[in-house]
């Protein structure tokens, strides 16, 4: 890695605090988004299946 990248990643000696903080944020907010999107798609598929079924 180039010195500039290494220096950026080192975060002036705070790498062990700055990167986990951003990691947790991305993980929690991204997790909420993925969970909510999954739930929406599942319900939507259920609804489509119920509406497709022939009525007696």
């Amino acid at each position, binding site marked *: 890695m180039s010195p500039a990248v290494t220096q950026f990643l080192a975060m*002036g*000696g705070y790498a062990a605090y700055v990167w986990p903080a951003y990691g947790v944020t991305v993980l929690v907010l991204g997790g909420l988004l993925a969970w909510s999107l999954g739930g929406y798609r599942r319900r939507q598929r259920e609804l489509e299946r*119920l509406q497709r079924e022939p009525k007696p």
Partner: protein
Amino acid sequence: MHRFANPARFMRLSATLMPWCALGAALLIGLGIYLALFVVPPDYQQGDDVRIMYVHVPAAWMASFVYALMALASGIAIIWRHPLADIAAQSAAPVGAGFTLVCLVTGSLWGERMWGTWWVWDARLTSVLVLFFLYLGYIALVNAFDEPGRGARAGAILALVGVVNLPIIKFSVDWWNTLHQPASVFRLGGPTIAASMLWPLLIMALGFMLFFAALLMLRMRTALVAAKVRALRMAEVERHAAGVLTPGQPALP
């Protein structure tokens, strides 16, 4: 208010608004992270550790804002029984809990280097932890009843009682001698934070707000679709029951 409390109208309105909120959130959070990590200079006291502030503070603002919104929706649900109010409160709760968790964890990471400890039981930290437990308690209570209506009502009352915690969080840094620093943005006499740090913070905060708006609409839409699925299932069960009892068929063996 009444005009938007109609579920069909909400489905149409949210279908238009949600993509724009999501796009705005992606752009603003992307720009905010770029500014926070690459552009903002290191703090003269905190060095690069100050970059944690750009996720910690917006998450903390959202934690309180989402709770206020949840309580408002709960009040509307109790008083006017709007069909969407309970759904809004229940859809917001897990997102609010997520923001509170981000606030607590990032604050802890920051405190370890700046204060020399992961956690102290000072008034600010403790009241935010109470906020986190209020979210979890609300979610547990809503799902604790067999009949969804009773769970929603019990949860709404808890959400309203918990509002007392919001001013405690806001003013804890003034009322008590806390390790946590006092407000530097929303205070009488204007912000005390440098403009070069304030702007990225506000961009990030607006990004978080739009992210919440998009996620809330998505979760409310999910709840409405689920209600429709339940109604169709019920109709199907009733048709079957009616079919069994048609004349000419043996009712029971």
